[in-house]
């Protein structure tokens, strides 16, 4: 075994978008580990905006030598054949050995293949590995047809032990030279695998994302920062040497809605917001710089000035927009396109209003539907599009709309994700439901159906929202008639919704897929009811008699299907045809339990069913007896089919 060496690969680039970095590292790791030709003990990944780094331990210096022996012709073979064999194996005929085998003596060629240095193998493999790293978007920079990467590659460090793994990619030759912080580090820094991280540190680059994360958190101890893990991650991958600083703004801006202030700070400036001891927004913010300190306060004052300008803009919009109340903006919606084939937002508003009525919404809901999209005409929403809905709600409140109305407008894009809450009041739930259903019906109606990852109108989110609102709002509504108008689009939408329902109950609520299938087979249109049945099934599952009974139901289903039997009905059973014993016992049991909930009968029913299948031949030769038995089984299955199709339950038995 040859010596084991550390391996270091650093791909030096221009600034990679922060959100792409973790996935790129994972992609690089998988690609490297997928190269079976490179053995190693462990792999560690790190990155800053300007470098993707892979470090492996325990890479051997070279491959082991391989000796192969190839059996040739028999010793008795003509000399010509022996020479031919030797030529084919690229050895001299006189170097062939003779081996004694049970079948006789044979010529043998022995070939020594020298193990190749891993440095050479890596040099061949790495350009391909780097080029294949997966990014959501790539560019070319060396000219048309040149290599593509997320941003230009400017240097590459590739070291196996103390030796450079030599290769070239996009005109960059691998070397043992890295680069420091753009302004606080040296541009060229010689490194070894041993001092790499330390040399970077000396040049104001903290290689480890975790260390950068901890540095930000630690230096913020004592500041009441509104927790924002997503923003923290952004900043961790936007900096090589992060240092938080606290800045302030004029308290008079606190008169603006908190939502607006936080959005300006978070989305536009990447600042953390700060709270006072009562949890109210404080006139402060935290910016994270990419340098170690700000002794003269340049950075703090610069950021304060930018924020002041932004807040001034927001205040200007807030005040200007109020000059024309939401209600006066409804006609303006005629000029805002919802979707080319689906008309303007004014038309959408009319449809949503009608739908709110059909869903049983009250006068508040109708009012909210009328004002729902008016904020799309405001300057504030044009400036901060991510605040649509919220801004409408805030204006409605400022314009003295009743609480259920302004809250409904405020919340109507909710839930925006699986984790997000549904609108806080019933008015809002109905309005949000109507808005989403209208979008779904409209888009499916004109063939805008999501495919794969393409979902430009966020219809998955809308459908998920419909499901979540109906279930979590415990709204007693039949969904199917609302989406079904008999067209192809409606059929596609019904299927789409069923997929979302399945997804919701499985992935968000933790029901097992067979439970969901079983319950949905008994109906999916009323989601509050579906949820109640799912809970019953889950509870039933803990009974030891349930799965065997479900297995029997499956058997019944198979028998009925085989016999092409349908039309089960208790009235059609002829008790006179039953034999005494297990058959009549099952019938009596059925009569006893009919109409009772399955939970209270499962333990008595199961032994009767088992015994029936044990002793009774369903496929009796006599037609009337067979038919009567099928009738009994079919009726039994039907008895519980309003809860679920239990034959869908996957049993271990």
């Amino acid at each position: 075994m040859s010596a084991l060496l550390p391996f270091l690969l650093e791909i030096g680039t221009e600034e990679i978008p922060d959100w792409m970095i973790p996935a790129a590292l994972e992609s690089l790791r998988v690609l490297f580990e997928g190269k079976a030709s490179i053995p190693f003990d462990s792999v560690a990944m790190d990155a800053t905006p300007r470098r993707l780094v892979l470090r492996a331990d325990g890479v051997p210096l070279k491959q082991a030598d391989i000796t192969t022996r190839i059996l040739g012709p028999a010793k008795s073979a003509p000399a010509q054949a022996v020479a031919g064999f030797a030529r084919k194996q690229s050895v001299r005929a006189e170097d062939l050995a003779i081996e004694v085998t049970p079948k006789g003596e044979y010529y043998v060629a022995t070939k020594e293949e020298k193990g190749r240095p891993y440095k050479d193998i890596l040099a061949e493999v790495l350009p391909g590995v780097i080029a294949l790293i997966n990014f959501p978007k790539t560019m070319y920079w060396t000219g048309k047809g040149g290599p593509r990467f997320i941003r230009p590659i400017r240097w590459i460090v590739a070291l196996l032990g103390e030796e450079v793994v030599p290769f070239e990619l996009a005109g960059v030759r691998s070397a043992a030279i890295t680069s420091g912080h753009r302004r606080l580090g040296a541009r060229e820094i010689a490194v070894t695998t041993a001092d790499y991280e330390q040399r970077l540190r000396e040049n104001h680059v903290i290689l480890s994302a975790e260390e950068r994360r901890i540095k930000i958190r630690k230096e913020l101890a004592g500041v009441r920062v509104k927790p924002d893990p997503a923003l923290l991650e952004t900043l961790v991958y936007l900096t090589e040497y992060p240092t938080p600083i606290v800045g302030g703004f004029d308290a008079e801006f606190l008169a603006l809605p908190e939502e607006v202030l936080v959005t300006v700070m978070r989305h536009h400036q990447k600042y953390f917001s700060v709270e006072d001891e009562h949890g109210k927004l404080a006139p402060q913010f935290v910016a994270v710089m990419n340098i170690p300190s700000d002794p003269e306060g340049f950075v703090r004052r610069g950021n304060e000035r930018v924020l002041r300008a932004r807040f001034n803009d927001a205040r200007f919009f807030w005040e200007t927009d109020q000059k024309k109340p939401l209600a006066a903006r409804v006609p303006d919606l005629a000029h805002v396109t919802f979707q080319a084939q689906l008309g303007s937002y004014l038309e959408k508003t009319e449809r949503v209003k009608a739908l709110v009525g059909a869903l049983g919404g009250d006068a508040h809901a109708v009012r909210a539907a009328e004002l729902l999209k008016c904020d799309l005409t405001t300057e504030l929403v044009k400036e901060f599009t991510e605040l649509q809905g919220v801004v409408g709600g805030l204006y409605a409140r400022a314009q003295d709309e009743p609480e259920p109305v302004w809250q409904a407008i405020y919340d109507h894009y909710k839930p925006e994700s699986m984790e997000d809450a549904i609108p806080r009041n019933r008015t809002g739930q109905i309005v949000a439901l109507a808005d989403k259903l209208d979008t779904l019906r409209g888009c499916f109606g004109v063939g805008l159906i999501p495919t794969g990852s393409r979902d430009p109108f966020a219809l998955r989110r809308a459908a998920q929202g419909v499901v979540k609102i109906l279930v979590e709002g415990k709204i007693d509504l039949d969904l199917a008639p609302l989406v079904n108008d008999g067209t192809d689009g409606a059929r596609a939408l019904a299927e789409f919704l069923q997929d979302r329902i399945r997804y919701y109950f499985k992935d968000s609520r933790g029901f097992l897929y067979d439970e969901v299938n079983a319950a949905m087979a008994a109906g999916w249109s009323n989601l509050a009811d579906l949820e109640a049945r799912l809970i019953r099934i889950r509870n039933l599952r803990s009974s030891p008699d349930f799965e065997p009974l479900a297995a029997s139901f499956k058997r019944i289903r198979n028998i009925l299907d085989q016999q092409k039997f349908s039309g089960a009905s208790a009235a059609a059973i002829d008790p006179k045809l039953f034999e005494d014993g297990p058959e009549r016992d099952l019938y009596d049991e059925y009569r006893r339990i009919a109409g009772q909930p399955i939970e209270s009968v499962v333990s008595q029913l199961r032994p009767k069913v088992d015994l029936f299948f044990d002793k009774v031949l369903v496929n009796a030769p006599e037609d009337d007896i067979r038919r009567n038995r099928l009738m009994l089984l079919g009726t039994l299955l039907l008895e519980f089919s309003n809860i679920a199709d239990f034959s869908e339950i996957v049993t271990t038995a």
Partner: protein
Amino acid sequence: MSSFQEIIFKLKQYWAERGCIIQEPYDVEVGAGTMCPETFLRVLGSEPYRVAYVQPSRRPADGRYGDNPNRLFKHSQLQVILKPSPDDVIEQYLASLEAIGIDLRKHDIKFEEDNWESPTLGAWGIGWQVMLDGLEITQFTYFQQCGGIDLDLVPAELTYGLERLTAFLQVRDSVYDIEWAKGFSYGDVRYRDELQYSVYNFEMADIAMLWKLFELHEGEAARLLKLYNPKAADKGRFPLLPAYDQVLKCSNIFNTLDARGAISVTERVGVIQRVRKLAVGVAHAWADQRQAVVAEVAQ
């Protein structure tokens, strides 16, 4: 403290020292320095080029009657095109900031993802907005496509927002307060311009007349493009640059109509398509014409 004009002098000097031709602003109204032929047409083809110029950029909808301290109907961009982009282009850019007196060891500079796209020009690129202490001061783009054509050489485009940069350097809250030259503020020079154009663009521009102008310019550009014959022996003298001026006129009139509230959202896409079609047409013809010219020179 450097005045507005001194900052411009220094940046021009800096880029001139790095091989840029220093051009004067283009004399047709544009919404951005990218639209000038010095960028839009020069980035096409395989001839290296380096140019820098200050371009007054008109965005009628951004006018605020001179009231808003940060928003202008017309702002000044320093546009730098380095074709092909040098390997140390970011270093060169950062040094340009140091050349106008920003000590980057004491300021926070970040490159935040911001990919630029102009549907009207059929152009897009990959890049960043450069943030200085939280202020966006430059758009940095590696052009990938222009006029719908994949570019042979990838140029770096640096667009400096000169008013912002100056306000930053002079520590002013309002662009109107920055010092243009000793004794003259930006407001002294430009306030009336902002006020009157806001009044015109938002209140008084004659919509019917603008539509008529739009159609005239559109018609002229389309007429010329139709006459361009790639097989003609003397195609090198065909007036594509004047045709492109007509496209620029269309674009500016479109922006004015938009600010005037005369274009519905539905119409918007259609009008953008019309301008785009002309811009892409000029770009393709230009690429063809330049190829012939380059070949001629080579002989």
